Structures are given as C-alpha cells and as structure tokens.
C-alpha cells in the first residue's frame, strides 16, 4: 500500500529550485490539498514574480503568471469573472510584502474570496539575495552587507500581524516548514485556507516561514535550524485571525 506519493496536481517535472529549498515542500502541500479536496479541475493558480515565477509549470491546474506583486489583483479578476473557480496565489515576500503591499492589503480589506500562500524566507532569492521587506534586523544580504540597519532602512513587515488589524480577512495563519511536525501543521493551515474559499468565507492567507539555503549561505539543514533560532522568534507561528472560530465570541 502506498502511504506517500507525489500528488497528482503536481506536475511530473523537475522543479528549478535550489537543493534544499522549501518552495518544493510548499508546492507539494498545495497540490496535496487540491487533490484531497478534489478541486483540480476548477482551480486556477496565480504565480508571482520571484523564485516561484515558474510555479505555472509545476501545477497541473490552470495557471496565470502575474506581474510583480499584482497576483491578488489578478486573482480578484479571475474570481470575479468565474466565482465557481477556486483561485489561489503563490507569492514570495518581495512580491507580497513590498511591491504588492497595496494589492495584498486591499484584497484582504475586501475579504476577496481567494487563497494566498505567502512564502516568507526573508530574502529576495531569484535576483540573488537582496534585502527583503521581511529580512531580519541585522540580517546580512547582498544589499545590506553590514546587516539590516533598522535606523537606515527600517523594520521588517509582519504581514499576518498587519492584516489582522483589518476587519476584512477571514483567516490568517503563520506556519513554518522546517520540521516534519511544522510541515504537517502547515498543510492543515493550507487546507483550511482552501476550504474557506470553497465555503465562500473569504480572504485566507497562510504565511509560510521558509528557508533559502543558497542566499542565506547555509546548508539546507542549518537553514532549517536558523528558522527555529532566528525567524520564528521574530515571526511567531500561530493563527492571527480566524473569523469563523471567533463568531461565537462576537469578536468578528
């Protein structure tokens, strides 16, 4: 009996990601959820600009490649055009939390009935390791070679905390994929984010704390440890908003 195999919504191709990059894990989780919910035939994914730009080659559902940061706007169009489809975006931190901040905030404020998978690895991977809106204070990157100096370039953007202040969004959760346990929790969150859309509940965003061994300059294993040591203390995991769960408490 097969207990673990590649999900069928994930294309049978080799992904271009660096060895040990956790994008592959998150892709697989999304595909597993699509399979389990039986929605491959009605799902449309939106790929971002960044390392996961070619995600359109990796999912077997219909896919759209968006301009940098604009995926939530494109998803809004797709969903409004075809409300019966299931629309998700897959975006990195530069895409979602820097150039696309307005699109992110306003799709959340509108409670747009879409699912956003947000990969936070605190760096721009595709362009070669520049400072991201989520790079940690002191973090050395190509464009913060002496470490991120908060007096000069400010503080990281905490997306879940920020969006949780809005009345709009249905569900916001931050997860990580640096251990078996965390990967399993991440899958539960991603599943919930898709189930919410199917139920018509609205905007669901899962922030996934991910690694970038290449640009962090670490082995894949060390990068996963760094998530525990540095990333999670700054970006605590957990549910930041879940309107359905709060309904009874009247805390909309």
């Amino acid at each position, binding site marked *: 009996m097969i207990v*673990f195999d590649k999900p069928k919504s994930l294309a049978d191709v080799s992904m271009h990601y660096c060895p040990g990059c956790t*994008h*592959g*894990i998150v892709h697989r989780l999304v595909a597993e959820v699509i399979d389990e919910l039986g929605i491959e035939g009605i799902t449309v994914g939106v790929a971002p600009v960044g390392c996961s730009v070619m995600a359109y080659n990796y999912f077997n559902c219909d896919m759209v490649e968006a301009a940098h940061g604009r995926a939530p706007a494109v998803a809004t169009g797709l969903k409004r055009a075809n409300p019966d489809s299931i629309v998700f975006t897959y975006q990195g931190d530069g895409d979602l939390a820097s150039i696309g901040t307005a699109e992110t905030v306003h799709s959340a404020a509108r409670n747009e009935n879409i699912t956003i998978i947000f990969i936070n690895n605190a760096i721009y991977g595709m362009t070669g390791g520049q400072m991201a809106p989520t790079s940690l204070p002191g973090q050395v990157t190509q464009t913060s070679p002496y470490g991120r100096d908060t007096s000069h370039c400010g503080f990281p953007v905490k997306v879940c905390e920020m969006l949780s202040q809005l009345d709009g969004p249905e569900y916001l959760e931050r997860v990580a994929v640096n251990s*078996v346990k965390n990967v399993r929790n991440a899958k539960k969150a991603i599943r919930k984010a898709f189930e919410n859309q199917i139920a018509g509940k609205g905007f669901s965003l899962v922030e996934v704390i991910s690694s970038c061994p290449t640009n962090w300059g670490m*082995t894949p294993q060390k990068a996963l440890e760094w998530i525990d040591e540095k990333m999670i203390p700054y970006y605590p995991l957990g549910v930041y908003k879940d309107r359905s769960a709060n309904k009874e408490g009247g805390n909309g």
Partner: protein
Amino acid sequence: MAKLTFKTDLCKGCGLCVSVCPKHLLILSKDKINQKGHHPVEITDQSACIACAFCATMCPDCIITVEK
C-alpha cells in the same frame, strides 16, 4: 513490509530526508552521481524502514514514494 522508492535522477542531494530519518537509514551516495550532478539519496537497510514518511514529508523535490 515498508519500502522506499526514490526517483534518483530528480534528487538534488540536499540531505533533508537524511536529517529527519528516525532510524538513520538514509545516506547521500558516496560514489554515485545522478543526471543532475548530485550525490543522490540511498537507503542503507530497507528492512529497517518503518514507513513513517518523515523523509518524504521533508523532501522538497517529491522524489520519495513510501509503501508498507
């Protein structure tokens, strides 16, 4: 009986599976090099595998099939 199958040619040799195997059964091959130019994962003792799928859970490239 538990069985692991690897799509060896797609392995990037990152070693995440190796690091999470509770039975320490996985290694990166010392002598083989795959199409991609990596030392791919290998299992040292198939019979000791408990099919926990930790390795497959952490594999970013989805190259591991687990049966039991």
